């Protein structure tokens, strides 16, 4: 199989954005990876190795080989990301590629890894397609997806804002935006909301004033911003500037919702996020053992708490290493088998597809790597912008930890239909 490590070390490829608007997020991912490598090689305090439910890893690297890594720059462009991943595979002999900060990149690199015969452990990617119509046997996603965001948010939105709401969506005009909008719309309509309008905004847009100005007069009383990164920071800032949050509509306080939050975006938007609801994959404020161990290692090494992108990357690196260790081989097909698990299942979910590899102790509580589509199922957090942050990292607070059962969907759910995992490809 491709890049079978023959020496005393094994090389992993960390492919993250290092230039462009997501560079800081990529940097945080890279920090998490370096931490994971440290832990795998038995340095540092061991982090989540101590809390991880699988005890296969022992701090002597992977299968006794020292873990080394190469880094690359995705530039958040699918072309550049593939070029970078290819060089890791062809030049550096990387056995696994991981990272990324957008769904387009994840899908593109996942496709490449499938062709090249290496494992791809997705970083931050939230589009339904990654494990939906574009899923691949060699690819795995720990991060949650747009459907889960919707499913987690809708009940909270109903509880906090009421069931009689009219939503106006602004949606980034590309695949991720569309799937997220579709998911949120479906979930909120299911709790009784009405969708007044959905307006697609150009990706390159920096000033959203002309999209926001008509919102207040449209009959809507909630604005849903299906934006990420710089788009989200700008559209939210603009919306607050237009005073939307001080206004009343239909006799109710006007509200803004940002379905997908990230800590860095929250930082970029500053005071504008206060009181705004959204969802995240994970938060450093969680109090389970896995989270505490990870936050402690990360915080001690870098001096500030990790982002949820960092956490997903850290977990992915450990999960991969653990799978190899359990499989006893670097062969991608053996790894796939190990990550698909022994058909164990999460309690409380009655479904034939509730089957795969179940683990705990990496944050979020018990988690299932579902064998049917290589998507992780775990609790999803609904967050709110904190009113009085004590420091620049403490910007979001947990409103609700949505249990896995509530965000569960079947692999053939229409929003995920269309793709096939295919066969695992071990490469040459």
């Amino acid at each position: 199989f491709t890049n079978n490590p023959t020496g005393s070390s094994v090389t992993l490829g960390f492919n993250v954005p290092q230039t462009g608007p997501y560079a800081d997020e990529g940097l945080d991912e890279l920090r998490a990876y370096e931490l994971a490598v440290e832990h795998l090689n038995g340095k540092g305090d061991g982090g989540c190795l101590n809390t991880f439910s699988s005890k296969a890893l022992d701090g002597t690297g992977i299968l006794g080989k020292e873990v080394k890594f190469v880094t690359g720059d995705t530039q958040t462009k699918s072309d550049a990301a593939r070029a970078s991943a290819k060089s890791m595979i062809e030049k550096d002999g990387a056995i696994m590629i991981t990272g990324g900060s957008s769904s387009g990149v994840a899908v593109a690199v996942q496709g490449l890894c499938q062709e090249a015969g290496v494992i791809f452990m997705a970083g931050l990617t939230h589009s339904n397609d990654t494990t939906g119509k574009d899923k691949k046997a060699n690819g795995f996603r720990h991060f949650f997806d747009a459907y889960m965001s919707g499913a987690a948010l809708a009940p909270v939105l109903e509880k906090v804002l009421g069931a009689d709401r009219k939503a106006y969506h602004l949606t980034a005009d590309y695949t991720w935006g569309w799937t997220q909008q579709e998911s949120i719309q479906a979930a909120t309509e299911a709790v009784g909301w009405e969708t007044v309008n959905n307006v697609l905004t150009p990706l390159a847009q920096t000033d959203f004033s002309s999209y926001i100005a008509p919102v207040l007069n449209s009959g809507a009383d909630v604005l849903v911003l299906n934006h990420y990164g710089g788009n989200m920071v700008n559209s939210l800032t603009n919306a607050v500037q237009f005073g939307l949050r001080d206004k009343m509509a239909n006799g109710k306080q006007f509200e803004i919702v940002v379905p997908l939050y990230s800590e860095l975006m929250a930082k970029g938007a500053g005071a504008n996020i206060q009181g705004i609801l959204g969802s995240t994959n994970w938060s450093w404020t969680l109090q389970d053992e896995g989270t505490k161990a990870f936050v402690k290692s990360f915080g001690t090494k870098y001096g500030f708490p990790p982002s949820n992108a960092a956490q997903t990357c850290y977990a992915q690196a450990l999960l991969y290493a653990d799978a190899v260790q359990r499989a006893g081989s670097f062969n991608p097909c053996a790894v796939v088998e190990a990550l698909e698990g022994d058909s164990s299942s999460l309690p409380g979910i009655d479904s034939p597809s509730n089957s795969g590899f179940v683990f705990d102790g990496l944050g979020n509580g018990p988690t299932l790597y579902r064998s049917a589509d290589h998507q992780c199922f775990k609790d999803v957090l609904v967050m709110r912008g904190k009113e009085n942050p004590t420091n620049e990292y403490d910007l979001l607070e947990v409103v609700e930890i949505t249990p896995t059962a509530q965000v569960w969907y079947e692999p053939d759910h229409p929003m995920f239909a269309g793709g096939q995992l295919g066969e695992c490809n071990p490469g040459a």
Partner: protein
Amino acid sequence: MDAIILQILNGLDKGSAYALIALGLTLIFGTLGVVNFAHGALFMIGAFCAVTLNKILTISYITIDETRTDFLGNPLKVENTYIERWFGPEIGSAIIDWSVPLAILFSIPIMVAIGFIMERGLIKHFYRRDHADQILVTFGLAIVLQEIIKYFYGANPIPTPAPEVFRGSFDFGMLLGFDPNVIIYPYWRLVYFSFSALIIGAVFAFLQFTTFGMVVRAGMADRETVGLLGINIDRRFTIMFGIAAAVAGMAGVMYAPINSPNYHMGMDFLVLSFVVVVVGGMGSLPGAVLAGFLLGILESFASMNEVKTLLPGIDQIIIYLVAIIILLTRPRGLMGRKGVMEE
């Protein structure tokens, strides 16, 4: 009707941003004939002047609060700004609150100095070189400036709010007799619009009522001959560059509250500002301003739902589409002068 007024207002505002950026660019590109790919970077540096001033004003000393803990369980370090200590909490926080307007004053000497250094140290040697060389060197410079900012401030946007009094919006529609909440308009955008008008007016006046503009135009057409007439054209070019940098910088400072500055914002505006300048017509200041407003307003209209349902995606391409139509119908843009950058 209300929707149209709303979009005209939005367009004016967007347009004033475009016009202001294009104005600075046209001084260098349209007048001095230097293809300045670093103009976006100057705009970005302006915005970061606002960020920097805010950072300076909030320089803090640290006290330890034993009663609270940070995320690792250690005693919490609380930051207190010197400004508040020196001027008292009230005045201190007011100064910090007003950091963006204050940054205008702060930015002018910095931007002028950057403009001078850039011109004397680099651009000076490129007046007589190909446009291609100018592109390469200024693009390189833009990257370098951008990376320097990234090195110090990171890639993430940095929130830079306007003073408290300018936050929120005011109901323009009620003024015109519409229902409440129909036409609302943020205060800061009004400030931005007025500020742009002021700067544009000032630059026009300077170039119109002095011979400076004529001399620079002449120098651009034929440096050698202008030198023969005893005029030190180099110095005037340097001054022109300083003005252009200051205009770009002020545009950036004022823009910071509208969208949180990030190191990339210059590149986002770069292409657009070239389009605006060229659509306005090379060498024409009024043209650049006019084109800025025109494109701003058209862009706003294109983002209206009614238009978008008719022509999906039109808001993505409107600027370029309009640019093509204008350049095909008017050979030198809206008000371009003959012979400027036509070969």
